[in-house]
């Protein structure tokens, strides 16, 4: 059996532990915010935080998260108050179809923990999620904006 804490709540899982975390989150835990885009850790649509690390959940078996603390896009905001990255995404009007954006936001939220003041080069190197709609121009602006919002928060 696997125990994991998802968005602050402990949950038990007793099914096939080879199943990727993504399917557990989406199908068993009912958290549909993380998306399926490629299934091979290429696109980042399935990004969630596992013990604070941005992780592509489509290739991570449930067995690997025993005891871990997982945050999904549904658990990122503080109640009604959006996380600075989410707020920046709204302010810069980043999304088009929006399908990649939960993963993008989770990737950026984790990135800013490590690199609170990313340069454009940092963004190029660290942000490898795919956006098929091509929202990269606004996305880059939103990352810088989110970095600024985080500082205001402090």
């Amino acid at each position, binding site marked *: 059996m696997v125990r994991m804490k998802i968005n602050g709540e402990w949950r038990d899982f007793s099914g*096939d532990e080879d*199943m*990727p975390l993504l*399917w557990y989150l*989406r*199908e068993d835990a009912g*958290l*549909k*915010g*993380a*998306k*399926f*885009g*490629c*299934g*091979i850790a*290429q*696109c980042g*649509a399935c990004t969630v935080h596992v013990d604070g690390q941005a992780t592509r959940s489509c290739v991570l078996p449930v067995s690997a998260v025993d005891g871990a603390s997982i945050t*999904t*896009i*549904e658990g*990122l*905001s503080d109640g009604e108050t*959006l996380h600075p990255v*989410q707020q920046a*995404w*709204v302010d810069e*009007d980043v*999304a*088009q*179809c*929006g*399908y*990649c*954006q*939960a993963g993008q*936001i989770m990737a950026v939220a984790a990135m800013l923990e490590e690199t609170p003041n990313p340069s*454009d080069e940092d*963004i*190029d*190197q660290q*942000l*490898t*999620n*795919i*956006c*098929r*709609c*091509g*929202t*990269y*121009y*606004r*996305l*880059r602006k939103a990352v810088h904006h989110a970095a600024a919002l985080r500082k205001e928060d402090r």
Partner: protein
Amino acid sequence: MNGSSFAATRRDVLRYATSAGALIVAAPLSACSRRASDAESLDHGPQASVGAFVIIRPDETVLIAFPNPEMGQGVDTSLPMLVAEELGADFDKVETTQMPLELKFGDDGAITWKYASQGSGGSYSIVGQWEGLRIAGATARQLLVAAAAEELAVDAAELTVSQGVIRHEASGRERTFGAVAGAAAALEPPEEAPQLKSRDDFSLIGTPQKMKNARAIVTGKAIYGIDAELPGMLHAVIARCPYFDGVADSVNDSAARQVPGVYDIVKIERPPLDGPYGVQAEGYAVVAGSIWAAMKGREALNIDWNHGPYADETSAGFQAHCEELLSGQGQVVRDDGDIDAAFAAAASTHQGYYWQPYVSHAPLEPQNCIADVRDDGIDIIGPMQFPSSANRLVAETLNRDRLSIKVQVTRLGGGFGRRLSSDYVLEAALTSAAVRKPVKLLWTREDDMRHDFYRPAGMHHLRAAFDADGVLTAWTHRLASASKYYRRPNLPETDYWQAELYTDDFPAHLVDNLRVEYFSARSGAPRGSWRAPAHTANAFVVQSFLDEIAVARGEDPLALRLRLLGEPQELAYEQHGGPVFNPGRLAGVLRLAAEKGDYGAVMPAGRGRGIAAHFTFGGYVAQVVDVEVDADGQLNVSRVVAAVDVGTVVNPNGIAAQLESGVNDGLSTALRLAINIEGGRVVDGNFDTYQLMRIADAPREIETHIIDNGDEPAGMGEMGLPPLAPALANAIFQATGKRIRNLPIGDQLRA
């Protein structure tokens, strides 16, 4: 994407205006749900859905349903703007939602739209709804004003409407929308058609508005097809024949049936060869209690696939086949003047060959669909660009009454033309019909990439002739490709060219001698509409060729374009986006982009600045692209400056978003994208080899400059894409002296 197939006829617009009265205003939620249920919305759908356009709630919020599927192009905001403008609503208090498919029997007994046309394709949503949605908003306003006039005991003509408030100027009294909505709901719509605002009076249309559903997206609450559920549903994945038009020689499913959770395995028959597609390929649907069990079950299937009639097809072979065809004589589909005489008399001639590969749509949300096929009706829930086509395909295949099939469109995780096809919807319906339970079908990425309807690949040959005075005297465009028009009912091969060559495109009407020639190439790869269809190929070749000509002639590429386009005039344009092409408007965007992008400035070594422009589906876009290429051939696209003329602007923010999207899509495709075929099947299956662009390669600066000239609005979903590849190739030439004639660029710049 043929515009005429979904152009609202005048009759539709009239019918829709009269029906608008019956569906418009509902105040207390009970009244609203009564009217909504009248429209038989799917109440178990993933989103609260309404059959009506406008619901005004007592708390002053206004819910507006948009008819066309939202796939990222911004209709969840731009279409409600049309309603809200005429309604006089406060747009900050407007919420928007996707309307489910609403069909009815028309007066002639044929199935027709109940309220409005409901497809997303051909950049047609704004064009198609421009009048009808404004009438819907104005009719709602009429009712609200009539109700307020009654309450205030004044003449309706004395009332003004602004930001959700109806005001009697003389007495200073006012009523809010929410306060009179209940009374308005009980009124019969007036006989006379509402007066629409003149464009000078617009206060919302033309203002930048942010996407309405942004908050739902950033909190993970937006519902895509892949997120939808029906109670008691099973999950399915399908093992499809990877070979074009192949079938299984043998199937052993006993191990798959042993996989825990697997419920059944259902054979999906392949479509008739040379007939229209229903599903795309033969397949075996593994139905299970969970998606994971279905996937495990599929892995355990043992199938020997016959390699099918195209077993020898390869990418290289197909390219050679196109080249070979071009050495002969093709089907002449336009022949103005005397082309041979013009070339014989020319002072100078130019020619070029260009290649475009197959590419995949690869929307980030793979195909999926829920179907619940019961004896008493069918429910379909999923991401579709043309839910009515899905409805028809399911009805025809399962022999059902179309109105017994309810279709709920979810938000689409991208479309790009892929979801114009309904093959995945039919697969879900066939599977559900077989197991007699609701089924949610999911395609993996590999399924999606190997069973796409690809953008046609083809080779182009262009020739041009100039006289001694530098006048362009002759132009030929010869194309060998596998058309997306094929396997269609009653479509002879002599019509295949129509999807790939638009014979009124520049320089038609601007050169005396013009020949357009088509060669229908043989390929087993399924083809379909890919964002801006043939415009992507034709803009690349024509705008690259113009640059080659300019260089050869020693002319400035911009000046050459401008003199060939000449003065503003209305030229006949019979293809989608017509009826008129105005070369002056194309020159206008070229001039503006050139000015804002400082085109023509001297560039340092290793840098280049290219320009291109194209007319796509009624919209005019020019782009100036800046590149840097280092000594190792590493390409960096630093900036794109664009000028856009799509007539009257509805949402300038949306126009910029779609321009940025077109730029990045065009760049991503030009850099690395090609679908490789070996042995009669698609090799690429996922983003490891089909390398969509990531942020590191995306331009850091994109500028959108809009010319709003008050013309009829065009859309913006596609026109931002075609100019990018040629402007890029032209910039690369300036930076390196290397001419890109074959796409994708791949490693062609490597030293």
